[in-house]
């Protein structure tokens, strides 16, 4: 395998050639294989809304960089939700591209069949021009005119996640978009079963050589080892199922709609202690729940844009994701811009860092 890891990542070259100024490289979770943002072997970012809560991961530092004002846009990657989950937890706007729309050459892989390189920003209007630079070969599509809400996914979310999401849906409808509802969880869970096989199987094969490295945490080592129990035929069968899964999702969920709508996460952003395996309050089940609504999108290869839609009962951001058909990236981003022109959930100053921002630097409205 040649991932082009010996030179200059395509996405960095494109941003640099377009005149962007790199502030730095951001922290992430071990091998980008952890949805909470916690890192057992290194320092890890803190949530700018409340330092005691997770940032989400694996693009944890990128989310914190944009929502704190250190950067305007940030590159991340998304294999099972790694852009959308930290966007939810920190109040960022995130774009997970159609699979293959943005080059991954020069990026450390996790599961190549699912990996996408994308962007985070404080708002879609800031994200849009950079997305156009990174996905220059994606043809523009017609605007999003209709969406379908995955009603059972919305009902399954905790109340203080569900209520802001409903406000976000109302805002989408106020943009003139037709909104209908469908039961989508059975289709999502059928896709998710294959997503787990591909993610675990490919990650294990890519990183098997690290199993004996002391620098890898025991929890991650166990996850990688689990993937090695998936045989080649099973892995190949799950990869080959993508076209059928896309057909099924389009028939059973999307119908005639342009995009599906559901929360990024069904649960509130958890406290840090619940993501630390050494803590008595650690919850492995909760870690699984963090990405339960995001992984299926990677298996389909579809694009998604996540937008902040309010705050939970602990004052932490909540996000909604809009999932479109392959190639509808710019239409999704354009809808996010329209929604954010009418709403004020994005761009708020995070409470845990407001004392560190200087109004004379031109960043604040």
């Amino acid at each position: 395998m040649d991932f082009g890891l010996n030179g200059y990542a395509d996405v960095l070259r494109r941003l640099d050639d377009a005149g962007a100024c790199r502030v730095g490289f951001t922290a992430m979770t071990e091998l980008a294989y952890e949805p909470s943002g916690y890192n057992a072997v290194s320092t890890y970012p803190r949530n700018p809304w409340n330092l005691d809560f997770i940032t989400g991961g694996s693009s944890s530092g990128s989310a914190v960089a944009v929502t704190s004002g250190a950067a305007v846009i940030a590159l991340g990657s998304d294999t099972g939700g790694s852009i959308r989950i930290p966007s939810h937890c920190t109040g960022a706007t995130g774009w997970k591209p159609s699979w293959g729309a943005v080059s991954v050459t020069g990026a450390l892989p996790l599961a190549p069949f699912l990996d996408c390189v994308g962007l985070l920003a404080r708002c879609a209007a800031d994200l849009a021009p950079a997305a156009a630079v990174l996905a220059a070969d994606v043809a523009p599509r017609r605007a999003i005119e209709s969406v379908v809400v995955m009603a059972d996914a919305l009902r399954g979310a905790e109340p203080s996640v569900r209520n802001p999401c409903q406000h976000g849906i109302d805002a989408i409808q106020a943009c003139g978009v037709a909104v209908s509802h469908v039961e989508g969880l059975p289709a999502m869970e059928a896709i998710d079963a294959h997503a787990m096989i591909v993610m675990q199987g490919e990650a294990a094969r890519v990183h098997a050589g690290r199993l004996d490295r002391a620098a890898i945490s025991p929890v991650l080592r166990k996850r990688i080892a689990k993937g090695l129990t998936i045989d080649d035929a099973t892995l190949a069968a799950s990869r080959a199922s993508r076209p059928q899964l896309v057909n099924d999702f389009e028939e059973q969920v999307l119908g005639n709609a342009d995009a599906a709508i559901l929360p990024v996460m069904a649960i509130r952003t958890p406290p840090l202690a619940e993501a630390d395996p050494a803590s008595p309050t650690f919850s492995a089940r909760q870690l699984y729940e963090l990405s339960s609504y995001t992984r299926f999108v990677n298996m389909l290869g579809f694009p998604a844009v996540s937008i902040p839609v309010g705050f939970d009962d602990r004052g932490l951001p909540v996000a909604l994701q809009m999932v479109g058909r392959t190639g509808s990236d710019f239409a999704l981003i354009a809808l996010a811009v329209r929604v954010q022109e009418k709403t004020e959930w994005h761009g708020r100053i995070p409470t845990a860092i407001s004392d560190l921002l200087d109004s004379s630097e031109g960043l604040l409205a």
Partner: protein
Amino acid sequence: MTDSARFSNWAALDKPTQTMVAATAIDRAHRLEPRLRAFVKIERTDVESSTKNALTLIPYAAKDLFVAPKHRPKVDWRTFWILV
């Protein structure tokens, strides 16, 4: 700072303000870092050399997942390189 204070959209800023935001980005990142630990490396941005292109001056960060001249991700790179 008031509760109603907000970040500006980059696209809505005039050029002098964009230049100011870009020029102060590194200082801001350093100021935030002890509390947030978002970065593994903060670089020196050369705002003056930013050319007139689609993303002129826009301060960006990159997940420590990408290779660049003079940069390799913090992971145990030599092991990974042998593997692939």
